[in-house]
């Protein structure tokens, strides 16, 4: 018996990994789905089945609806901005100029630092009393336009967006650069012979070849943006008021406030919000191929 296991172990070497993954990912996921139908507080033994009550509660609470809309708005804007900036930087730094390698290093550098730490750094930069951004704006003559943006509900989310784009365009850029380098040079040569200009080459040669890079960038950024947490905590902590509270911050607060059942229901809603666009984009791109 033991011999048989030993002889066939090589076929089942995926099992240990799967076991760990099952215990700490799939099992809690299933447990969470069950929990979301109860009114459990997270501590007591009492747990009553309440059906879809938690979900109804979510859609009745104006604060919850607001966190959902904030998350969706952010989840829509962040991937767009990061991909536009990342692609732009990749095209710019793929040129034959000197020092492009050094520039790539600079662009990538912030993304290896914790988003929480970087959030505090930007809070320091944006301080109204003697913050560096204000100094620079005054130097350039825009001093009058400075506001304590993080303190206003209308602008705080945009600052979070900007900081994230600043910090995380690097990885997107690197993926696009890898895509650019995989385009065969002959294609460009043929296009040049056919008389194509720069923009035409971009449209007819570069972009179609970048599709895999585009796909991976969009999907990973959507998933990341919809569960944004660290930089929100550091920059605004959901404030002013609840203006920049995203779903993941909300989940954290609800579970800390002894509403485990409700918090898991919110998590399930976040899961659905994440899955829908990812599956949709994945499908659309598979079809095009």
């Amino acid at each position: 018996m033991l011999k048989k296991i030993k002889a066939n172990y090589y076929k089942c070497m995926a099992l240990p990994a799967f076991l760990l993954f099952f215990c700490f990912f799939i099992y809690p996921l299933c447990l969470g789905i069950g929990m979301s139908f109860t009114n459990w507080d997270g501590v007591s033994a009492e747990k009553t089945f309440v059906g879809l009550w938690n979900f109804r509660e979510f859609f009745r609470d104006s604060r919850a609806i607001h966190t959902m809309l904030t998350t969706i708005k952010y989840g829509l804007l962040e991937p767009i901005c990061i991909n536009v900036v990342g692609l732009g930087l990749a095209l710019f730094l793929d040129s034959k100029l000197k020092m492009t390698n050094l520039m790539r290093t600079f662009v990538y550098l912030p993304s290896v630092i914790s988003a929480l730490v970087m959030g505090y750094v930007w809070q320091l930069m944006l301080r109204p009393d003697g913050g560096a951004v204000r100094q620079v704006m005054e130097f350039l003559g825009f001093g009058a336009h400075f506001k304590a943006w993080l303190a206003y509900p209308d602008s705080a989310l945009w600052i979070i967006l900007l900081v994230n784009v600043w910090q995380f365009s690097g990885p997107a850029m690197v993926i696009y650069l890898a895509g650019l380098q995989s385009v065969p040079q002959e294609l460009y040569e043929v296009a040049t012979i056919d008389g194509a200009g720069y923009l035409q080459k971009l449209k007819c040669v570069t972009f179609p070849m970048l599709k895999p890079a585009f796909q991976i960038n969009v999907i990973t950024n959507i998933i990341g943006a919809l569960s944004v947490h660290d930089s929100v905590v550091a920059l605004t902590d959901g404030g002013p008021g609840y203006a920049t509270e995203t779903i993941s911050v909300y989940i954290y607060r609800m579970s800390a406030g002894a509403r485990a059942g409700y918090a898991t229901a919110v998590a399930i809603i976040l899961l659905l919000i994440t899955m829908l666009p990812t599956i949709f984009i994945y499908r659309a791109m598979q079809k095009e191929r």
Partner: protein
Amino acid sequence: MKGYKNRLRRTLGYIGMGILAFIMLFPFYVLCYVALNNRSNPLSQGVFAMPDITAENFITAWQRGNLGGAAWNSFLITAGCLVLIVLLGASAGYTIARYSNTMNKIIFSIFLCCMMVPGIINTVPLYTIMRRIHGINTHWAMILLLSANRLPYCVFLYKQFVESMPRDLEEAATLDGCSRFQAYWLVTFPLMKPVTSTVVIISSVSFWNNYSQAVFFLQEKSLYTLPLSMKQFVLENTKNWNSISAAALISAVPMVILFLCLQKYFIKGLAAGAVKG
């Protein structure tokens, strides 16, 4: 005419790079400037005024923020996670690539699907599991949890790589009397070094910087990782921006050094994920 146009384009390119470098590096400059400065509101004098240099902020941050202990905790968790994901991820990726029986196919598709699920979804139910296995406020539970979250990505990269490897060497090894497992462990695993380095480097950043899981499961101050200590330090020292900057610098430095030394692996690693298509 053409030369003139080219020169113009090149000049514009360098101006663009200058602006880009300023945007990317200015926050780091300000961070160092404030951290090294003795004045309590250093930037009110202008960003380029001569700083009143002192190392005191670093000492305050290091002592009051317990950053040394936090760095050690971060290191332990990162190291533990790396060992786990490399051992488990490599063998899983290998088997899935080499022996595609039904079980392996199902396991792989589950891993792929779960790549779409953000980790934060599981935190509340995980809390109950962690309490049952007495894993709250322990490093080992944190290690298991974080590596489980990272496994799908890892398995995917390994599978991708093994598929592009020739089978000849393994077969030669089995002919020489190795068991299948030995052939994997003694021949193939060492040959997977390129992916292993990618997995280790890219993942160590995410383990080191993890905050959203750690904040749930590590509540005792002596177990805090760097991001947690950083947050705690900011809460306890509001407005003391000099030492906050010093603390931020200290917690950023390890990953910055790692990145600067191993740049080419970072870039290779991300590119490896991108060829999926």
